[in-house]
């Protein structure tokens, strides 16, 4: 229902209302001269003229580092304690519809068979307020992967920019509950939203066709892979900013007698990622690691979890220090016979 309106000057009231309820309010804000998602306490900290925050908001559901257990090694025993996560209510404001669609991918991997409650508990307590895109840049390609500037997957409440504020639509039960809880700040007036920014669909790219091409095992050794990935330096920035990348490491920190076990983000682009103790490494060169990431997005994820592995947000393109553009690889893959 799009019968509600939030005035620009009332965003501060919404933030206060959310924070009064004990939840954290995450929004695009200025961090080291860039626009990034972080917790804000007032409307003056919220940036509105952004295309996309530099970081994905996945870090509020799946932190870059988190303690999963603590241990004390004593003379005759070990005291081991699992972390009891007290998930805090979280409101993500200003997500773009592309990255909201990534929740399906994260949810799938963290719940198939074994359920990672560190993720599910946080996700259950998170409300995603997306703001439909009225601006974009040439790295945006949501329309090429089947999404749009007002796609609804993963979005609880959709905001659309209008003169003097936002038109508000409740898309899920969670969204309705949220709006109901903070109903005082919204007004019951319909309004005309501003026109949206639709990135041009990349000609000659069809993700369904890419999936088919990747099914052909002959293409796995195609010389195009080392050629395309030649300039990749394996920095892993694409994976850290990607809203669907979920790979992590489990490591112990502390002294020999007392410490904690942590889940830390890891990246398939790092050379140690798949290194065996014997020295054997199934992905011993950078192009193999890059190929794995591309296939994970366009073949493995869609097949395994029926979810999008790539949502077209373009973060990996913007952040790549060597300008390795995933859409160029999509074009090349679409050309394969």
């Amino acid at each position, binding site marked *: 229902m799009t019968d509600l309106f939030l005035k620009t000057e009332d965003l501060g009231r919404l933030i206060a209302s959310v924070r009064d309820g004990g939840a954290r309010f995450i929004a695009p804000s200025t961090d080291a001269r860039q626009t990034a998602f972080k917790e804000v306490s007032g409307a003056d900290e919220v940036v509105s003229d952004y295309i996309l925050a530099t970081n994905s908001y996945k870090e509020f559901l799946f932190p870059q580092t988190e303690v999963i257990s603590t241990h004390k090694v004593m003379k005759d*025993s070990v005291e081991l304690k*699992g972390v009891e996560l007290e998930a805090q209510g979280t409101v993500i404001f200003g997500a773009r519809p592309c990255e909201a669609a990534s929740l399906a991918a994260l949810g799938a991997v963290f719940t198939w068979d074994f359920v990672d409650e560190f993720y599910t508990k946080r996700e259950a307590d998170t409300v995603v307020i997306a703001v439909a895109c009225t601006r974009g840049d040439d790295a945006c390609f949501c329309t090429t992967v089947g999404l749009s500037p007002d796609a609804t997957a993963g979005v609880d409440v959709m905001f659309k920019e209008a003169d003097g504020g936002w038109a508000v639509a409740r898309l899920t039960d969670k969204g309705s509950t949220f709006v109901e809880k903070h109903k005082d700040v919204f007004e019951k007036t319909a309004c005309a939203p501003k026109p949206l920014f639709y990135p041009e669909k990349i000609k000659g790219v069809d993700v369904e066709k890419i999936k088919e091409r990747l099914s052909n095992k002959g293409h796995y050794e195609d010389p195009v892979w080392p050629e395309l990935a030649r300039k990749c330096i394996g920095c892993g920035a694409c994976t850290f900013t990607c809203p669907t990348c979920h790979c992590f490491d489990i*490591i*112990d920190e502390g002294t020999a007698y007392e410490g904690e076990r942590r889940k830390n983000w890891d990246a398939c682009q790092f050379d140690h990622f798949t290194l065996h103790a014997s020295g054997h490494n199934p992905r011993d060169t950078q192009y193999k690691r890059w190929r794995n990431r591309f296939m994970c997005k366009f073949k*493995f994820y869609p097949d395994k979890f029926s979810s999008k592995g790539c949502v077209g947000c373009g973060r990996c393109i913007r952040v790549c220090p060597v300008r390795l553009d995933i859409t160029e690889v999509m074009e090349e893959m679409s050309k394969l016979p």
Partner: protein
Amino acid sequence: MNNIYLPHLMTIEDIYEEAPDVRTFSLAFKDRALADSFAFKTGQFGLYSAFGLGESTFCIASPPTRKHGIQCTFRKSGRVTGGLAGLSIGDTMGFRGPYGNWFPLDEWKGKDIVFIAGGIGLPPVRSVIWNVLDRRDEFGKITIVYGAKTVADLVYKSELALWDERGDVTLVQTVDPGGESPDWKGKIGFVPTVLEEAAPSPVNAVAVTCGPPIMIKFVIKALGKLGFADEAIYTTLENKMKCGVGKCGRCNVGDVYICKEGPVYTAAEIKKMYDDF
């Protein structure tokens, strides 16, 4: 909260030196109820913790037919295995598991079984061997081909002697050229070659192999030459893992998650995978 990453505590009850830097631990659950209820199938694996250093993935090297706890065998080669190697009898370590699929022993009833292992690849195969030997009447001829780089690197030396003494097992041992000792009585040569010379019959038979990836590749070729169908060749793909439960994203071979859909596969299944070993 159900924490899928939280290990069980285990006591090291015994330690066996198998080869230079290779050790076997006998482990018992500290939790009595768990010790009674714990069940696994041959081929499954677990994650073993050295607290303060982290977790490593190994198979369960003992057979499910021997009820008292579990055993694991590992080579000291990094941070975690180095930490484990520093533990003594009576010390505490962690275990999560069992994870993954298993060898379908019930489908093998009445068949001959050929085991082929290389180096530190014997532990997962050893679990199957003892499981089969503990149910000896249900299977046909048993052949074991085992090799290592050098005589010193052969693991489970006392059990090799036990298998050798048995009248109902054919054991062929080999070491790589140059790895023999003056009193070595076994073969000298690489495992795939020695396997071809031993020429076990493929008729109504299955083969089980584990070793370095390069050895597995050539063993599968050799078994093909001997007439074994790809569907009758089983192996276990022990890839690098951190979570063991399909989340951390590093054990995949193409679209196959080894930790959840494996680690046990037939050669027929492996040939369908992307070449990502």
